[in-house]
């Protein structure tokens, strides 16, 4: 049987990045095809091309044997393609029915909405696929899991044959994920076909019919869950050639600097983001936090640095409780923070380098006397740091927006490292940087560690965590699954842990390891 959808040689280039490199893909009718890959592997780009949001540079899309042009979402909808976006495209103050029919409204004469007929249709779809949705409920009153079902109804309402689901489990609780898989199987049982984008290996093994592994914009492997080896898949997914090598001595951990006890953090919508975790970081060691994006790391870091409130639990830094401290109090304790989103949180882009270099110390001597800024001191500081940290610029008065990503990050590193610090919290410190800058920042982190600084390194880059960290904590779904010595764990095992699979480390090996604590 001919595949319902075929992609041939899809290539997409963004400035400086080859997001998709001649990707071929076939989707048969009635199957769930999983696209497995790390963040940034090019999965979402590929699906955005299929949904008409990006135009491919090369390649063609063939549906039911016929080549089609998909230039806009409208074209995609017409071709029977529907997409559930990672961030739901739902209007909170509208009802389910209104959201579903938007753009394809049921009307009577003169454009008058026939909400009742549309609601009946929604009800019908809901019953047919066992979705259990009240057509008249307001979206903002529904839990996330049900909102996702509304997104699915939106596609079915438009008679979509091919459903793309972009990281559908990212926002769901485990129970909701189970429900979602049931729904997906209902869908294929009735002839729909699904492309399921994820980086969670466990889910793929559980629900996909076929798996396509994507890495760095290329298809690197194909498998069927029944016969696949999860370890091999994990290696395929994260197994980019090791290109970075950091020389480092064994850590000599000192006294605990950061203590976290039973910390729980809720998001604004009361979703549990960090779930009752405890750990400590000692002077002179790097604790790496590995995990797939969106498993609570962002919230953990924001809470530790005073940018977000904890729901319960206790944080103390150097013996002083900081659970309710504001960012300045925490900074003044000798805590440095390299934020995850450097352009949003870490820099004032339109301001000159010299001002960004004193962004959190501008009020202290020697940069200010009373309330008067000491421009000479600020400029002198900037010149010193530009030299010491090798920031490539024509002068300290240049706005930071004019620097490359690597140099922007160096500005942050220079600012944070130039203070006497006891604890460094670094979140995705090398994301999006070139190899040279990555190497540079890694070296600096090790230097700080050797100088006796405690470092909490949060990264989704497994290689980075493995090379830099002395101990590694794996976060999954808001919990720390385990904390292990970095030397005694393999990449495959970490990959499985990141995917939420905890039972795969064999008992024999485990004995040999100094697994300090396991929190499940």
């Amino acid at each position: 049987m001919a595949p319902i959808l075929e992609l041939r040689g899809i290539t997409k280039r963004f400035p400086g990045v080859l997001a998709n490199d001649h990707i071929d893909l076939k989707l048969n009718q009635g199957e769930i095809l999983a696209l497995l890959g790390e963040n940034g592997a090019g999965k979402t780009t590929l699906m955005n091309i299929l949904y008409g949001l990006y135009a491919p540079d090369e390649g063609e899309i063939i549906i039911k044997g016929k080549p089609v042009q998909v230039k806009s979402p409208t074209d995609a909808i017409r071709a029977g393609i529907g997409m559930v976006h990672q961030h739901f495209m739902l209007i909170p103050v509208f009802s389910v029915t209104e959201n579903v029919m938007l753009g394809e409204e049921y009307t009577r004469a003169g454009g008058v909405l026939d909400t009742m007929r549309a609601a009946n249709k929604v009800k019908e779809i809901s019953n047919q696929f066992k979705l259990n949705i009240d057509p008249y409920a307001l979206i903002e009153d529904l839990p996330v899991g049900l909102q996702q079902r509304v997104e699915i109804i939106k596609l079915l309402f438009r008679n979509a044959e091919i459903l793309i689901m972009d990281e559908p489990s990212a926002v769901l609780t485990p129970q909701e994920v189970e429900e979602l898989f049931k729904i997906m199987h209902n869908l294929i049982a009735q002839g729909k076909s699904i492309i399921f984008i994820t980086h969670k290996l466990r889910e793929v093994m559980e629900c996909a019919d076929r798996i396509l592994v994507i890495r760095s914009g290329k298809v690197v492997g194909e498998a069927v869950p029944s016969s696949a080896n999860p370890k091999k898949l994990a290696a395929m997914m994260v197994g980019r050639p090791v290109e970075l090598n950091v020389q480092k001595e064994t850590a000599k951990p000192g006294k605990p600097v950061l203590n976290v006890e039973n910390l729980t953090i809720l998001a604004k919508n009361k979703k549990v983001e960090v779930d009752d975790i405890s750990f400590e970081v000692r002077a002179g060691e790097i604790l790496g936090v590995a995990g797939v994006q969106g498993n609570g790391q962002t919230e953990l870091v924001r809470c530790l640095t005073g940018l977000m409130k904890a729901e319960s639990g206790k944080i103390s830094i150097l013996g002083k409780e900081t659970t309710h401290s504001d960012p300045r109090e925490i900074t003044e304790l000798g805590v440095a923070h390299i934020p995850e989103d450097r352009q949003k949180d870490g820099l004032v882009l339109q301001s000159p380098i010299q001002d960004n270099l004193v962004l959190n110390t501008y009020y202290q001597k020697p940069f200010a006397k009373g309330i008067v800024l000491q421009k000479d001191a600020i400029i002198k500081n900037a010149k010193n740091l530009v030299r010491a940290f090798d920031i490539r610029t024509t002068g300290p008065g240049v706005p930071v927006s004019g620097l490359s990503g690597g140099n922007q990050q160096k500005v942050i590193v220079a600012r944070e490292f130039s203070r006497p610090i006891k604890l460094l919290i670094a979140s995705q410190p090398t994301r999006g940087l070139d190899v040279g800058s990555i190497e540079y920042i890694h070296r600096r982190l090790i230097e700080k560690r050797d100088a006796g600084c405690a470092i909490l390194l949060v990264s989704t880059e497994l290689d980075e965590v493995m090379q830099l960290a002395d101990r590694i904590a794996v976060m999954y779904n808001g919990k720390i699954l385990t904390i292990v010595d970095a030397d005694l764990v393999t990449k495959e095992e970490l990959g499985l842990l990141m995917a939420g699979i905890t039972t795969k480390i064999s008992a024999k090996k485990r004995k040999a390891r100094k697994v300090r604590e396991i929190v499940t």
Partner: protein
Amino acid sequence: MSNQIQKKEKIIREKPENLRQVIMGALFLLIALFIGFVFIRTTDTLMTTTFVMTPGGSKATLPDLVFNTRAALIAISALCAILGVYQLIKGFGKATNWILGFVGILLTTSFLAWGAGGGSINVGGMLRVAIMRSVPIVLGAFSGILCERVGVTNIAIEGMMITGALVGSMFGSLFGLWTGVIAAIISGGLTGSIHAMLSIKYKVNQIISGTIINIFTVGLTSYIVTKILQVAEWQYLNQSGFFPSYSIPLLSKIPFLGPIFFSHNMFVYAMYLLVGILTFALFHTRWGLRLRAVGEHPKAADTLGINVFRTRYLVVILGGMMAGFAGSYFSLGSLGYFEQVMSAGRGFIGLAAMIFGKWTPVGSLGAGLLFGFAESLSTNLSILRFPIPAELLLMVPYILTMVILAGVVGRSQGPAATGVPYEKESL
């Protein structure tokens, strides 16, 4: 674990509701006490108040309402107290806002009864004038609703109105009143299209765009008045006259209500019609659904194939036309000619009415009537026993709007994407 969290969530959600219940109950009781201590104590037992229920010149008559001032005040105070106690103990729940409005009416009534004690006040006439005064406010609010519902802030209602007023008068003088109205609507649409172009195409800050239009239109209209309309040989360009009053058969014969609501000129009836049309169009048609979607979540609308830019353009222009129509009321519905800055800030009160009415046509009508009543009442204050200054009363709409906006009395929030230019690339 998750149960615990759900419990917590419940507690967090319930708290403000309880607080609100207590605040409201206390407020009702305070009002009861205020009437008791301020109004009743300063009123003789034998004093009577006369409410004239028929606007001047009306044929449908209703006998004047003569009552004992003190007795009426005691009754009203007691009613407020009962409502307050009930609110404190059981609470009116979702009806609280309606009860609040009712208590507001009670307070106003008691104030009038007390103020006019020993004399009379023409309540009917005052309400009739309130309707007339509310027309530009309500229509201005409609303009605001259209623009903000589609995601564009419009502080240029004032400027669009003044344009409509001038163009209406000039075309009205030359080609008749109806042509004047149509020209005013078109001119409003033109200013609306400038706002649309600046804020949608050029992504200029929408407040700045509105400010530009306000400065420009006030300048241009005053310029034209001084340069042309005040010159003797051109004065015929500014003598449009205004639409005559038309009493609707039967309806205008209803005692009390008839003359107040159904004996006006075209603009008032247009306002009634537009409330219905706009409510229906916004909430019951495909057009309205798409419009609101664009204002709430343009990206979502875009992924479903709705053209965000085109929708915004069309609706902002329509909002301009509405404001142009509102403006023509000043010249063609009220004064009969154009005067410099004759809109006198009504566009901004319209904006306030829009917020007060929570971005709905019906709510804005209510708010507009309330603000219109404040204006109408302010001209009648001097005849009262204890005159409070009109200017202080005129401050009330603005203060109320700020209170509403701060979320003290029920939160009022506009469409989510208002004021944010849409960037297609950011998908």
